[in-house]
């Protein structure tokens, strides 16, 4: 047992290297992005559902929308609490108000590292308004 010093030095070096990513990135966490609302979205006051619902469940909502539009020929979404009805369309309804895709959709999506493929086919109308 004469290698005690060697083993301890080796262990220290190993732990330092192993934990390098943790202490190197300490305190550098990106701030949680806050989606920006356009003037039009602010003026509308309410989305198709409450803001909390949309924040948490917009992906499920869009999923239901696409299935009902494509398969059941139903294209109108009526929120009975507010009495408003909406055309269930990503490009024509969502992006009509939220015409700042980069600041509204992409910001959080890239923060959460999700890569929705909606825009492979659906048209981002906000693009040509700039």
């Amino acid at each position, binding site marked *: 047992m004469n290698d005690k010093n060697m083993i301890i030095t080796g262990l220290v070096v190993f732990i330092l290297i192993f934990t390098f990513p943790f202490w190197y990135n300490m305190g550098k966490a990106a701030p949680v992005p806050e989606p920006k609302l356009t003037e039009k979205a602010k003026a509308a006051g309410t989305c198709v559902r409450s803001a909390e619902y949309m924040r948490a469940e917009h992906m499920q909502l869009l999923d239901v929308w696409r299935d009902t539009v494509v398969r059941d020929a139903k*294209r109108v*979404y009526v929120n*009975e609490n507010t009495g408003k009805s909406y055309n269930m369309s990503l490009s024509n309804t969502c992006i009509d108000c939220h015409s700042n895709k980069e600041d509204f959709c992409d910001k959080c999506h890239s923060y959460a590292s999700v890569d929705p493929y909606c825009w492979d086919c659906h048209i981002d109308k906000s693009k040509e308004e700039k």
Partner: protein
Amino acid sequence: MKKSRRTFLKIAGVSAIGLGTGVGVKPVLNAFASSEEHGQTKVELIKGKDALTAKRWGMVIDTRKIHSLEDLEPVFEVCNKLHNIPHHDNKNHEIKWIWEEKFEHAFPGEYKYLNDRIKHLPFPVLCNHCEDPPCCRACPTKATFKRESDGIVLMDFHRCIGCRFCMAACPFGARSFNFVDPHTVLEESDINKDFPTRMKGVVEKCNFCAERLAVGKMPACVEASNGIIAFGDLEDPESEVRKLLKSNYAIQRKSGLGTEPSVYYIV
């Protein structure tokens, strides 16, 4: 420390009570509570009030009114434009929703002495929206399906995996595969912003303008055809198409196959 069976059971019991009173399960309970709150908003998914409906949409094409390809060009053009159909120079990559075909190709058979008019006439052909569509049987993901409400055979591009079984199954060649990303040839300025585009690797075809019917408009080809194409409910004896079929001799493509096409041709 050695645990007897008795002490182990004691600790397990106390832990279970602790969990039950809500320390550990709080997040789970919260999740239930919040979903209940969401449930309070009542929503309804309905058809637009202007939507055109039918039991089974059908089309009657009066080929007597076609004199040359020029009569059909506006029809093809409006469809291509409206649905963001890419034009590929390579014939293998072609995307077709409605296009022209020679009689002997559209209606294959033995025609030794074909009448001159029919022989040189361009026939507009498209998806037949069959009553018993073989493409829907072949589709492994139900990406293509017959809409039960009105008989239109549709594509759900979200689900299409690009296996092309439907193309092999369709006896009319009405389906095209996007071998190339359509955005490589679609001009940004030509894109109809109200209709989605497609991506590489999905099959597409005519949709009987389902998106127009939903807002009370007739299919674009019908509007642009100058009376050549009639559109209506095949199940309604009073509809325009049924009246035309009653008073004129009309044929379907490959009716012997039993798919029962919804597109008729008056010859």
